[in-house]
């Protein structure tokens, strides 16, 4: 297991290195002056030059890259183009909120997606399948902002069951924090679970034809045993893989949801940076998000291997 993870990291490191090159080029090799672009009409040449010197953007490209890269290795994400503040503490401050939403969202994705997919696949072509499959396709077609808007209008404005946005840290007020998390997490669950449901449905339906399921019946096992130990335990396997596959979509969905619900997470920081055209901030955040993405992906593989004895790490 350990050797596997080390091996994986050996692949991931050059990948990340290449990513840093790409992101660096992204800011520096594009036509036009990012600082002038950021400042717009207010940007006098003197101001532009001053900011450039302040942020170290007047040094040779290779030197800039090297200092950025060595910063990243030590956990220093550089400074914001606009404010000149260190990015690292800002990002760290936002990570708890983001992870809270990510895991709450994942919880709903699995809570909705797995049972729906499993039941539809187990009774493929049955009445439940004929309701769930079209529902999944509709769910797949609904943008997160739309579902979120509907939830805000219905649960928040009309029924007043839940606050329509904002964030309270869990350790400050657990109850309020959960109330605030529910709606955005539910939006992630509703919009992202259809994909999981469809994959689980397909794999569960395929299981029914597996020789080991047929053989289980010839051995006179109780239907409950076949469902639990044969169908269910094998149907769970693809879930982890699908979660890994969907991670990018989850992060994309989170960008929308954090914005819609005023959720002070990393994704919202990215939007703020993008809107204010803070290229350095966006550059570092994309890197951070890619790292999180890769790490969670690695985690899903490890979890999958621990669930499926056939996979050897």
């Amino acid at each position, binding site marked *: 297991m350990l050797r596997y993870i080390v091996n994986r990291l050996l692949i991931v490191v050059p990948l990340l290195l290449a990513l840093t090159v790409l992101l660096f080029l992204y800011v520096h090799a594009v036509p036009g002056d990012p600082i002038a672009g950021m400042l717009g009409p207010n940007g006098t040449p003197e101001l532009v030059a001053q900011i450039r010197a302040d942020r170290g953007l007047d040094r040779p490209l290779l030197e800039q890259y090297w200092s950025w890269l060595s910063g990243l290795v030590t956990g220093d994400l550089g400074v914001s183009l606009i404010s000149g503040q260190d990015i690292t503490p800002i990002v760290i401050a936002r990570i708890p909120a983001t992870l809270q939403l990510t895991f709450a969202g994942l919880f709903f994705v699995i809570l909705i997606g797995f049972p729906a997919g499993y039941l539809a696949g187990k009774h493929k072509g049955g009445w439940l399948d004929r309701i769930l499959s079209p529902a999944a*396709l509709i769910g797949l077609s609904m943008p997160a902002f*739309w579902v979120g808007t509907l939830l805000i209008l219905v649960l928040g404005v009309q029924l007043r069951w839940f606050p329509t946005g904002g964030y309270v840290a869990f350790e400050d007020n657990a109850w309020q924090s959960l109330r605030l998390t529910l709606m955005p997490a539910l939006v992630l669950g509703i919009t992202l679970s259809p994909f999981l449901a469809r994959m689980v449905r397909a794999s569960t339906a395929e299981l029914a034809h597996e020789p080991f399921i047929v053989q289980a019946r010839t051995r006179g096992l109780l239907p409950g045993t076949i469902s639990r130990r044969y169908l269910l335990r094998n149907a769970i396997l693809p879930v982890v*893989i699908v979660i890994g596959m969907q991670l990018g*979509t989850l*992060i994309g969905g989170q*960008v*929308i949801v954090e914005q819609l619900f005023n959720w002070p997470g990393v994704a919202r920081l990215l939007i703020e940076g993008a809107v204010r055209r803070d*290229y350095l901030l966006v550059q570092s955040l994309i890197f951070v998000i890619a790292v999180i*993405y890769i790490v969670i992906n*690695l985690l899903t593989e490890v979890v999958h291997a621990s669930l499926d004895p056939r996979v050897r790490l």
Partner: protein
Amino acid sequence: MASVPSMVPGRTPGLRVRVLPTGGARRITLHAIVHHRRAFLGAILTAIVLLIGVVGAFWTPYDPMTFNAGPAFSPPDLAHPIGTDVYGRDILSRVMAGAQVSLLVSAGAVGGSLVAGTIIGLLAGYLGGFVDVLLTRVVDIMLAIPGLVLALGIVTLLSPSALSVTVALIAVYTWQFARIVRSSVVAVRHRPYVEAAKGLGSSGVSIVFRDIFPSVLPVLIVQVATAFAWGILDEASIGFLGLGVQPPSPSWGSLLIEGRQYLYDAPWLPIGAGAVVVIAVLGVNLLGDGLRDIVDPRSGGTRS
């Protein structure tokens, strides 16, 4: 939305591009679509949405840019089926006028990434060796960035406009096309009929286009439909975040950001404009799903 399987750490169990057996790939014919319930429904919805886009380019019930076409914040009624916005503009007219922008952005994104991805995939798959390794690595890196995040990064760099959104989405979708094409080509390259063509002295280009490309085509068509649905969703999402087409010019994305500002005063604006997006995406998804079923009947759907 945009991003798909993790390529990142090498093995992705259970997720392989299914390459269809030689000649076994069902052809996508009009007949097949008409006789497939979901494909047919999807095709009709898609056609309606495209029609709205075309009509909206030339005619709308009211001028989409004119203020006070009706009272401000008028809820849906007969004169304004989806109501009016803060300036009293007719939302239905704006949705119709916005359709062309959204559909063109999506079509441009799909077209651009189809061409770019196919070229990359063909090169990597057919040439193999160093080129393949290099291009595959690049694809891996690009797919390591969540799609919407990558798109936002690129939109930030360019000015917010329909064109930049298109460019950004091309940069997001290309890699998925490249990967599909590459794995299909690799799977097909050593099949007897391709080997035979080589033996007969066909040139590389003609082998690629005469012998390899046709076998990749059905899978690509399905991917085009999928990507088109993503395109509509992503344009709207980027617009919603305020980084896409800017108000006042209408696109489904820019309508949504206006909708967000007046969520409590005119809920019909985000709901109505969003519903149109849902219908458009649903149509394309149905069509794509149906096509996948036609191309590869084992892909898991209930046939109809």
